[in-house]
């Protein structure tokens, strides 16, 4: 479970870090917001699991992931814990003490935010290519003996000013694709709603 969750969080890290302007850094008080479309292709399913919604990544606070379709769900990830609600009702809460690596994860997130990719897990080999403004980065597991990495085949991140897309391919043939749209950087204070969510997740 821990490994799986770590893996999931690593993926999440990439998603969360996705809107990072390259190579600039998110400064304290700044936030990126935008929309996402996620398609998850699982074997045996007639059509992909598609969800869409909006996200907010606030420097020093964490990430709010608001799914709108197919149903309203909110996931809040902060250094203090993870909180998930569905239609306003809490369905899962994991304090950082239950997810001990959350702090480390958050360090990585912070590192990535400041354009420091060296905080990425050591288990991946990174290949980068660029064409004009547009760049692509492919991460592949560096060590075949690592069971967590072994479940992943590759992660491809591409973008220009922001990260525009992420594609994750698993060893078992499942894959998912994330597209980020309408991204914008702002230095305005957090909306009351968002601030409350961050506070709730930290309780």
């Amino acid at each position, binding site marked *: *479970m821990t490994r799986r*969750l770590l893996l999931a969080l690593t993926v999440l890290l990439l998603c969360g870090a996705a809107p990072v302007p390259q190579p600039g850094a998110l400064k304290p008080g700044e936030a990126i917001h935008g929309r996402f479309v996620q398609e998850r292709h699982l074997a045996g399913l007639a059509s992909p699991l598609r969800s869409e919604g909006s996200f907010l990544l606030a420097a020093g606070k964490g990430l709010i992931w608001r799914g709108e379709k197919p149903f309203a769900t909110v996931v809040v990830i902060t250094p203090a814990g993870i909180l998930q609600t569905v239609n306003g009702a809490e369905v899962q809460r994991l304090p950082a003490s239950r997810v001990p*690596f959350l702090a480390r994860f958050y360090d990585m997130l912070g590192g990535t935010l400041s354009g420091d990719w060296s905080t990425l897990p050591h288990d991946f080999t990174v290949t980068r290519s660029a064409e004009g403004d547009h760049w692509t980065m492919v991460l592949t597991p560096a060590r075949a003996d690592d069971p967590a990495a072994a479940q992943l085949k590759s992660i491809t991140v591409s973008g220009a000013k922001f990260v525009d897309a992420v594609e994750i391919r698993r060893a078992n043939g499942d894959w998912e694709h994330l597209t980020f749209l309408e991204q914008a950087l702002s230095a305005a204070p957090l909306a009351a709603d968002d601030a409350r969510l961050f506070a709730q997740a930290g309780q």
Partner: protein
Amino acid sequence: MRLARLAWLAAVAAAALYLLLRLHHGVEFQTDLLALLPQEERDVAVQRAKDKVTALLGQRIVVLVGDADRATARAAGATLAEALTRSGTVSQVSYTLSADGLKRVGAMYFPYRFGLLTAADRARLETGRGQEIVTRALANVYGPAAIADSALLHRDPFLLLPAFLAELPTPLPRLMPDDGVLSVVDRGKTYVLVTAQLSGEAYALAAQERFMRAFTAAEAELQARAPDVTVLRFGAVFYAHAGAAAATAETSAITIISLVGTIVLVLAVFRALRPLGLTALAIAVGVVCAFAVSLCLFGTLHVAAMLFGVSLIGICLDYVLQYLAARFEIAAATPERRLRRVLPGISLGIATTLMGYATLLLAPFPGLHQVAVFSAVGLTASFITVLLWLPVLDGREPFQHGARLLAAAGRLWTFWEAPRWRWRRLALAAVAVALALIGAARLTIDDDVRRLQALPDDLKHQEAETRRLTGIAGGTEFLLVRAADDEHALETEETLAPRLAAAKADGALGGYQTLAQVIPSAARQRADRALVEDKLIQPFLADYYAQLGFAERSLAPEPERGVLTPAAIPADSPLSFLRSLVLEDDAQGAMHLVLLSGVARLDEVRRVSEAVPGVRLVDPAGDITRLLGEYRRRAMLLLGVSTLFMLPIIFWRYGLSGGARTLAPPAIAVLLTPPLMALYGIPFTFFSAMALILVLSIGFDYAVFCRETSPTQRAVTMLGVWLAMVTTLLSFGLLAFSRVFAVQAFGTTLLIGTLLAFLVSPLAGDSNSFHGKMAEKD
């Protein structure tokens, strides 16, 4: 007399021979402190469990190696783990996690997943809120932190196993696996964890010594390679070693000062070697006889009883010095005359002291019986030696150099008798009473066993840091669960769990760990499986699969697996440490351990847990504290009883008012010492109570010597008392400077008590001494 001397020589020779033979064959001295205590635990199984748990926790070694550079910390951790493994002093050194350890945990649980529910999920299903579990699974599948692939969705559609695994108790909640090593990052430093189990007991000196040598060498190697590496450690062995090292250094310093001081004193006062030899002879005979007789009677001896017994034999110095000081009296021309002069005093002294020691036999404590026999035999043997041999071996001529010494020694008596000092005497008495009253108001009693050990601050800090960084909880309390078999023990734990959870929510308890949290009972697994089938799969699965768009709308077929049992935990599983929670499991029944941490309100935890049949709370530190309290009360009782035993002798010999005067010095010393110590903020403990028994004997000795003397002999008597007082302070009073609390309390009590007994000893004197007449007859 001649015959008696030869007979005594033969007896001592026989004792010495017996002792040599016994020592040659090897005598096992007891060192376990618990061996001193009465068999408080009638339940052998519980006692065995207690010993097991104590050993288990006592052997644990936890080390964090930290450095600002992650690679340096990891290299240092690996070096330390390697060095410890190589040393052969520890077992189960753990540094790197096996890469697929967690996968193995998952693999162990997976076949039984429909019978494994978290408490919250069980409550949801029992109250018909299965939809909540479905919603959570859907949110996960669509959410950003998805853990499910299609294979998992077919076999554990509602992700019950991940929920169960996330709720498993974590012994190291703050550590995370980082590339195969448990690590934590704190204030810019990366710490890696190295744990091990000591082979052998933490308190066994040899094992302790070998481990510490290996550990210190490894640590030095790390520091040489990377000077900034931090090594945080905790474990009983580190405290035990530090304590032993401090005690050894301190003991040798105190012994040397005490020995050299006594020798210099005796030489300076008598200006001859012979008195020194006679003193040593009397003590040596006492100790040899005490050893021989005690070993013969008990078969073995406890080290603590031996040490205390030797101290008590030291009282015989009082009598030897009375005899030796008599040589300063010019009128007493021969050793025989000198002996006759002091004989009434020292006979009464030893009679009262033996009475006091005999009362120790009345206490139901095995340790005190040994002390009583050891010291009584030793004291009697020393006394007989003084009577029979000292006059023969002593020089014949009286000392001529004593005029100034005697004048000085007599001055104390003058203070108590001279009319011109009257007001000062009254003032002194008033001050003493006032101080005693203030002290009495501040007097506190403290039996806390933790005071026994003066733990070094540095190690305490390292332990606190390690606990903070790893989240390993502290505390020595635990629960024992007894049942007919393993399954029933697990069921008992399941009855217990909600009570402990409530106590935890209530703040009475920081946390707990039961085996049933990890391996639920078979009964619960079966019930949970039925619940999942009836309340989750039947009503929700088809719709759920339809919503996800699965072509196949039913579960993948599974072979029947039965239930998970503790025996199914593989030896190489990261969970294998849980096997140590099973203390006993045989035909007589099962006994499980439930670990508690952060117990804030012990009585509440005891009440809620012991209400479940078969559960018992064990509080080892509390048990010893209670026992020390019991010992303290017994010691006080002994003090009273031995005084009562001495009274008939005193009143028979001195009459009512004379007896009362003789009682005054020991009574003042015993009554004033605890309040005076309280003025310095020293609480009253068992150790002070034991020291007071000695103070009582010493006080009676001094008082009797003063009572028995005649005005012409006063100075000589006081010289003997003065010498006795100084030698006592040199041997016991110095203990007041020890850093070990028990020793310090014992020493301080003796220091103050002996000084008081000395200062007020002339109060026992009689200006119209009837013994003066006896002396004149000589």
